[in-house]
């Protein structure tokens, strides 16, 4: 028995050492990638400054800024990417697919979907057979709640090896209630991303993130844990992975783990939604003062935002019982811009939380109109239905 125990312990230590080594290597490589990207940005900034007529240099610079915005969540990079992409497209609209794509993505990152659709539609017109563009249009239409138009785009995507198209198709299937189909596509894309040439660590980790989020959402925590472990091996400090890991820990009531992951996520990139996770963890382990401080900070930070609030923030505010009237006003405004199922869900939930359950009952069927089976939406619908 002792021998078996010693062997098991030895195996655990060996495995643990391998994980620690892999993560140290990943950190070094991620740091190197970030340094190369920063040098590339400096290089292309200088080139663009020297040549006021180079659409290509501006397109490339926009792509790099977009990449950094994705890795760090830095707003200023997103705005800068839009600015240089606009300059690139203004210099040369024809044969400048790269510039137009950067511009579209930068607009989507700022939730300016209508403007993004104008750019994407023009690209689609130029090359209707390009699945990347077709799926991009589909994704924007999905965000705008124009489901019939989105369906036409996604119907054109059959079996594909195009990773971007496949991930967007997965999202379409999920929103339209085909959870198993979406899962299959996500797992397939994830496995192909492992060997895909030219993907950065942040990008490979993103596939694991999507699988983990999906698994957690649909009640498969073991699959989520597995994807998170794989993700952390690729990108140990990825703030999005830590946020999902915090959610996973909260679902298991592992408060210390949840607080640790939420803290690490916040340390890498400040997001009010992660403050909500930290607050839940602190409350779970009995520190009500710390939980209140985190919620107060979330409220202060969200309320200072000049534009539309992120829906995750609005839901967190509602669940914390804070700023419900302001969230309702935001939700109403959001619905004026786009009528997707999540906009309806937020609106219905805000009505419910502000005491207008009759209004919530009218709104909630719109949130379920695509046959979506997202457990969060279904739980909101149940509560609204059960409330007199």
């Amino acid at each position, binding site marked *: 028995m002792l021998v078996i125990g010693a062997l098991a312990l030895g195996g655990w230590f060996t495995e643990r050492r391998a994980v620690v080594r892999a993560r140290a290597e990943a950190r070094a490589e991620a740091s190197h990638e*970030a340094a190369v990207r*920063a040098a590339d940005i400096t290089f292309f900034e200088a080139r663009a400054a020297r040549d006021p007529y180079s659409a290509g240099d501006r397109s*490339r610079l926009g*792509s*790099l800024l*977009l*990449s*950094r*915005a*994705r890795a760090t*969540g*830095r*707003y*200023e*990079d*997103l705005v800068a990417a839009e600015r240089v992409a606009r300059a690139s497209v203004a210099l040369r609209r024809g044969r400048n697919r*790269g510039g137009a*794509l*950067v511009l579209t*993505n*930068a607009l*989507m*990152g*700022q939730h300016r979907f209508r403007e993004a659709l104008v750019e994407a539609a023009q690209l689609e017109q130029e090359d209707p057979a390009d699945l990347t563009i077709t799926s991009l249009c589909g994704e924007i239409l999905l965000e705008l709640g124009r489901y019939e138009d989105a369906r036409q785009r996604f119907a054109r995507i059959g079996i594909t090896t195009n*990773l*971007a198209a496949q*991930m967007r198709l997965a999202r379409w299937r999920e929103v339209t209630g085909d959870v198993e189909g979406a899962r299959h596509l996500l797992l397939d894309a994830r496995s192909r991303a492992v060997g*895909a*040439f*030219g*993907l*950065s660590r942040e*990008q490979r980790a*993103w596939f694991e993130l999507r699988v983990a989020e999906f698994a957690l959402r649909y009640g498969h925590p073991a699959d989520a844990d597995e994807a998170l472990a794989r993700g952390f091996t690729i990108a140990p400090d990825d703030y*999005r992975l830590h946020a999902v890991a915090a959610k996973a820990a909260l679902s298991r009531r592992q408060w210390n783990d949840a*607080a*640790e992951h*939420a*803290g*690490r996520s*916040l*340390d890498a990139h*400040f*997001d*009010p939604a992660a*403050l909500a996770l*930290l607050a839940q963890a602190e409350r779970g382990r009995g520190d009500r003062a*710390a939980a209140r*401080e*985190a919620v*107060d*900070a979330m409220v*202060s*930070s969200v*309320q*200072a*935002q*000049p*534009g539309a609030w*992120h829906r995750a923030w609005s839901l967190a505010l509602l669940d914390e019982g804070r700023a419900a009237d302001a969230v309702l006003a935001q939700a109403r405004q959001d619905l004026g811009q786009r009528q997707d199922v999540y906009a309806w869900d937020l609106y219905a939930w805000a009505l419910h939380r502000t005491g207008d359950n009759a209004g919530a009952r009218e709104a909630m069927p719109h949130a379920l109109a695509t046959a979506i089976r997202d457990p969060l939406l279904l739980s909101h619908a149940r509560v609204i239905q059960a409330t007199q």
Partner: protein
Amino acid sequence: MLRGLLVLLLWRPAPAHPLHSSSASLTDLGGGRVTLSVRIFSDDLMATAPGGDSAIATYVRQRVRIVTRDGQPIALAIVSIARDGDLTQVTAQGTAPGGLSGASVQHAVLWERYRDQVNLVRATRSGHTTTLVFSNGDPPKALR
């Protein structure tokens, strides 16, 4: 170039907003030694503490304060000021005979610049890390 194209073709960034925050790591190294590392966006720091490294060092010492259990401020010696992309990382060391046990901390950088500035301190003692959150105007907080 191929990598750049793949970046373009795959996906958009997560929604981003102009948020104001600074993060700090505070570590009890044992033996009464304490190290502090504060990260601040460089453009904000330059606007708030113009005048080069000495101005930055003075500013950080004024704005990030650690007080021992006995109420004695821990004197921080700035060991490095490094630029990392658009961030400036200021590292300092101090001595506290009793370590960080029972100490309190306040992280107040850029509060005068942004009303919604939220600062974080990740404090590590004996391998255990906690996250303290400071909204604008919050008093010093005891390390948990």
